């Protein structure tokens, strides 16, 4: 029996759920926390789809599966389309009365990493959002192609070093800023869009529940700290995520009906981004004197974005 609202972390860590413990994700990977939270926040039946990526390769290696519910993976780019194909079939079969249990509520959820969401699957996601299917798309954003050894994606922040945007004697790492996927999804007219973080697990559970309850296409970007490619100790996943949300590198907020913006976590003491960057190997080179300007740029971008979020929250536009 899944719990519909998580009262404490002990309950969360010990309950039986539909995502089995046996998987091959890295120790310290935040993906499994996020997935478990989604699957625990509802008692409804779930049809899940996953794009190719860390989650997919770690949970369905024949003859094993970690999924105690319906699950499908087709390719790198099309989880949104796969799950909405299922959603459409559900509609028809419900109408015709050909389902095994015609009255049981079903929710449709697609998972993708940032590579498949921001880059290769962007068109498939956009199409599914535009068509207005009743489903939720959850991006597990670890800001790189972690499954293939840490290449840059359009979610990789400026200044991070990756295998295909390397820091070196003539480079400070990735030159381009991160794509603002949350705004892009809100601009699709999606009824519910949010950015959530697993350290703020109560707001995450609430956000997931809102998305599942909302009719129509919902999008949630989740911060998924990646010890392997961000380069930190696996035991520090939540600590790093705390730094991410407290420095406002990852602000936690939701946008309802494309305009009603609510900030869901407001740090008491906003932490300088330097502390977040300094805790990860992928930003180490930024602390050389010649790269200081990149840290300043990141900080100034964060400040501007936070200012914008607060103004939008106030203005309701």
């Amino acid at each position, binding site marked *: 029996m899944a719990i519909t609202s998580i009262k404490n972390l002990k309950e969360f860590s010990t309950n039986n759920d539909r995502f089995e413990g046996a998987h091959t994700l890295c120790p310290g990977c935040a993906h499994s926390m996020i997935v478990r939270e989604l699957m625990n926040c509802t008692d409804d*039946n779930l*049809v899940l*789809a996953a794009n190719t990526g860390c989650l*997919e*390769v770690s949970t*369905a*290696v*024949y*003859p094993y*599966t970690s*999924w*105690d*519910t*319906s*699950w*499908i*993976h*087709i*390719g790198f*780019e*099309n989880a949104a*389309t*796969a*799950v*909405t*194909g*299922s*959603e*459409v*079939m*559900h*509609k*028809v*079969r419900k*109408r*015709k009365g*050909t*389902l*095994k*249990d015609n009255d*049981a509520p*079903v929710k449709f959820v697609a998972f993708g990493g940032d590579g498949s969401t921001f880059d290769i699957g962007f*068109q*498939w996601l*956009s*199409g599914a959002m*535009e*068509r207005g299917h009743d489903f939720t798309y959850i991006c597990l954003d670890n800001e790189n192609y972690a499954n293939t050894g840490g290449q840059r994606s359009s979610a990789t922040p400026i200044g991070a070093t990756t295998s295909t945007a390397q820091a070196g004697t003539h480079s400070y790492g990735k030159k381009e800023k991160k794509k603002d996927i949350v705004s892009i999804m809100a601009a699709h007219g999606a009824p519910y869009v949010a950015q959530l973080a697993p350290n703020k697990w109560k707001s995450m559970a609430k956000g997931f529940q809102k998305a599942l309850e909302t009719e129509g296409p919902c999008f949630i970007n989740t911060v998924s700290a990646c010890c392997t490619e961000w380069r930190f100790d696996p035991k520090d996943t939540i600590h790093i995520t705390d730094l991410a949300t407290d420095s406002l590198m990852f602000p936690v907020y939701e946008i309802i009906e494309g305009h009603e913006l609510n900030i869901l976590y407001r740090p008491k003491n906003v932490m300088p981004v330097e502390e977040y960057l300094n805790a990860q190997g992928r930003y180490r080179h930024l602390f050389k004197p010649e790269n200081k300007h990149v840290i300043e740029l990141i900080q100034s971008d964060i400040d501007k974005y936070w200012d914008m979020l607060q103004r939008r929250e106030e203005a309701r536009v």
Partner: protein
Amino acid sequence: MAVKFDLNEREVWDGNYAASQALRQADVDVVVAYPITPSTPIVENYGSYVANGYIDGEFVMVESEHAAMSGCIGASASGGRVSTATSSQGFALMAEVLYQASGMRLPIVLNVVNRALASPLNVRGDHADMYLGRDSGWLQIGAFNAQEAYDLALCAFKIAENPSVRLPMMVHQDGFITSHTAQNVYPLSDEAAINFVGKIQPIDDMLDFSRPVTYGAQTEEDWHFEHKAKQHKAIMDSKPVIDAVLAEFKELTGREYKRVETYDMEDADVAIIGLGTTVETARVAAKNMREKGVKAGVVAIRCFRPFPLEEVREALKNCKAIAVTDRSSPGGAMGAFFNEVSAAMYTSTNRPIITNFIYGLGGRDFSIAEAERIYAEQMAHIEAGHITTDIQQFSGLRGPKLGFFRTERS
């Protein structure tokens, strides 16, 4: 309940319309589609049947053919009847997911209106797209006219969804020549059609939560080979089911289809073997040649996958010279169909002369005169006792003759 669609005993339909009526009568639950010439009317019509209540289904227009097949996979894994249509570039864009659909053993029916692959861009019919699908793990059957496009689309659901088959199936027709040529078509009544096709039996249904299923698992060197071998075996084992469904269809309609069709082959010395509408042209040419005293025949491959190797060998067993026609650019090799027919004949006791004709690319007309010329050339080979030309020739090409590959048998 769907609104009744009035049908006459005899309708005048083109291949596209005929295929779309088969989709309606088969009570297809979901069509996920993206438009592309010349296949567009098939899915447009399905959409209009939904819009006007002639079918209780869902029509989903997506943003690309890749997404169309991806949506079909999600829908098909959810237990209902699924179909779509495409051509050419759209087929090429689908290629990745075609393999996924067959690997997951999902009985999707794809109507492929054959069209050339760019570049140069071309909207006319050739078989480049059909050839692109030949290793994709789908069953492939070919319709040569509008009646057949209708008949075989109905048969395809029954074959693909058969619990012992459970493989996706393509129904091919030639772009424009079949898809846009209106002819007399004799449809079944709605009742007779759905009784013939039957209801789909959901297997490994994602919407049956009493028995969770994982679709699209990963296998590496430990299991991948076994999965692909099983898939190949399933394709090979589908032959008796295909034959049984075609036989049942004949009983119902009187219209007979075989995986390999033969025309005037009983005593033929020379034969043209081909795919698609080419066959009807070759049949007229063969009749003309017989009036001139040449024992000419035609062999048509209706079922391209599984490839009917034994049936091809049987059909051609007494032939002295065979012209194998490929309507796809061979890209630096013999035509793919030539290679497959050659494999059938090399493993027979009769080792006839075999040559390859590349023809009709990008919709270039394949004329009766050209087919007659091919027959005459086969007779010249027989008289000489060996191939007197290049093994591979481009037929119907402008400018000087173009041929490749020489034989050692002279």
